[in-house]
């Protein structure tokens, strides 16, 4: 099927794709941080309230979106400093290592993986562990992990669950299953569903039936029966 719109996928690892809608939405997520120096007249912009001429005093806590944090982050000119959001911290990482399948990743920030990958851009001593946790949580590794866990771990642990649920639920209400997945996993789930649906549709013989295109149906042309009388 020729598509009119080819979506640009999210970026690789620590890089973002400029044109990717997923990346744009993901970089809107907020990070906790602190202003290292006084920021004149930016109080309203950063949500601190007050009049239009107030400045943000030094050391005050801010919630900054990722795109702003990346732009202002510079180890030489200390404008802001960022901290890790709590789901990437030690406590949550042990939860992921225990069992990554029970965590509701959608509530934790719908872009857990992408955001976690972007966090690695800020040099933070726990970076390798975060990276490992995200990966392992996805796949559920059997490798002995001495360090407190890391991002690929989450991916690996949840992979099985996503694969089984996407390939086995045909024509059922999947909203309960999908509610706990973050955006990246949802895209994967939909791919699995599509594979299954295509196969079932073929097997029923619908693949060779001619159906009206959805574009034409949306024109809302009046049917023949309505024209008479």
């Amino acid at each position: 099927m020729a598509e009119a719109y080819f979506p640009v996928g999210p970026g690789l690892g620590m890089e973002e794709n400029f044109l990717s809608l997923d990346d744009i939405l993901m970089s809107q997520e907020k990070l906790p941080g602190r202003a290292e120096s006084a920021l004149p007249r930016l109080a309203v912009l950063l949500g601190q309230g007050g009049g239009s001429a107030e400045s943000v005093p030094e050391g005050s806590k801010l919630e900054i979106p990722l795109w702003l944090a990346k732009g202002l982050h510079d180890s030489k000119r200390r404008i802001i400093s960022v901290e890790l959001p709590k789901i990437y911290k030690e406590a949550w990482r042990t939860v992921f290592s225990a069992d990554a399948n029970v965590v509701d990743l959608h509530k934790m920030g719908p872009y857990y993986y992408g955001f976690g990958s972007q966090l690695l851009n800020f040099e933070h001593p726990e970076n390798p562990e975060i990276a490992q946790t995200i990966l392992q949580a996805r796949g559920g590794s059997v490798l002995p992990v001495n360090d407190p866990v890391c991002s690929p771990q989450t991916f690996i642990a949840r992979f099985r669950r996503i694969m089984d649920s996407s390939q086995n639920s045909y024509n059922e209400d999947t909203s309960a299953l999908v509610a706990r997945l973050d955006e990246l996993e949802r895209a994967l789930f939909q791919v699995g569903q599509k594979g299954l649906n295509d196969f079932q549709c073929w097997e029923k013989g619908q693949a060779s039936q001619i159906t009206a295109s959805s574009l034409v149906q949306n024109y809302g042309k009046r049917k023949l029966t309505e024209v008479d009388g």
Partner: protein
Amino acid sequence: MEPAEVEFLAEKELVTIVPNFSLDRIHLIGGDLGPFNPGLPVEVPVWLAINLKQRQKCRLIPPEWMDVGKLEEIRDQERKEDTFTPMPSPYYMELTKLLLNYASDNIPRADEIRTLVKDTWDTRMAKLRLSADSFVRQQEAHAKLDNLTLMEINTAGTFLTQALDHMYKLRTNLQPGESSHSQDF
């Protein structure tokens, strides 16, 4: 690749029919077919067989593997083994669907055959998922699976390649300091 495309490829397989008309050899681009004599079996590709059957010009003879005993054996062996058993035809799923939809009157015990083939398919897909899971879990570099048919690969393939893509992206995070400064666009 869509299932319809895989079915298209499957229609090139040869199957035996018994025509009720006569015709000399016909020369097609892909090769010669015929001659057709009433009552004498001849081998033709599936697409022609289905077409003739729909026009009631022939009778289909089921392939020798499409038999309840044989399929039961295959199904049991599939359940016993951990690896994939070689299938009697690389397009068993498509051929079953086509022949049982259009020529079920020529095939004895068609419903049982349908059930058996579906069971075998389910077992094989489950094995495929299991091996994909262990592949991801152990973060292997490559895997080799023998005796898979195109339809199975097609159904499970897109999901697996996308998941492995994501894993690769996440794994590049583990190597800091390798930031590439080039953009694709």
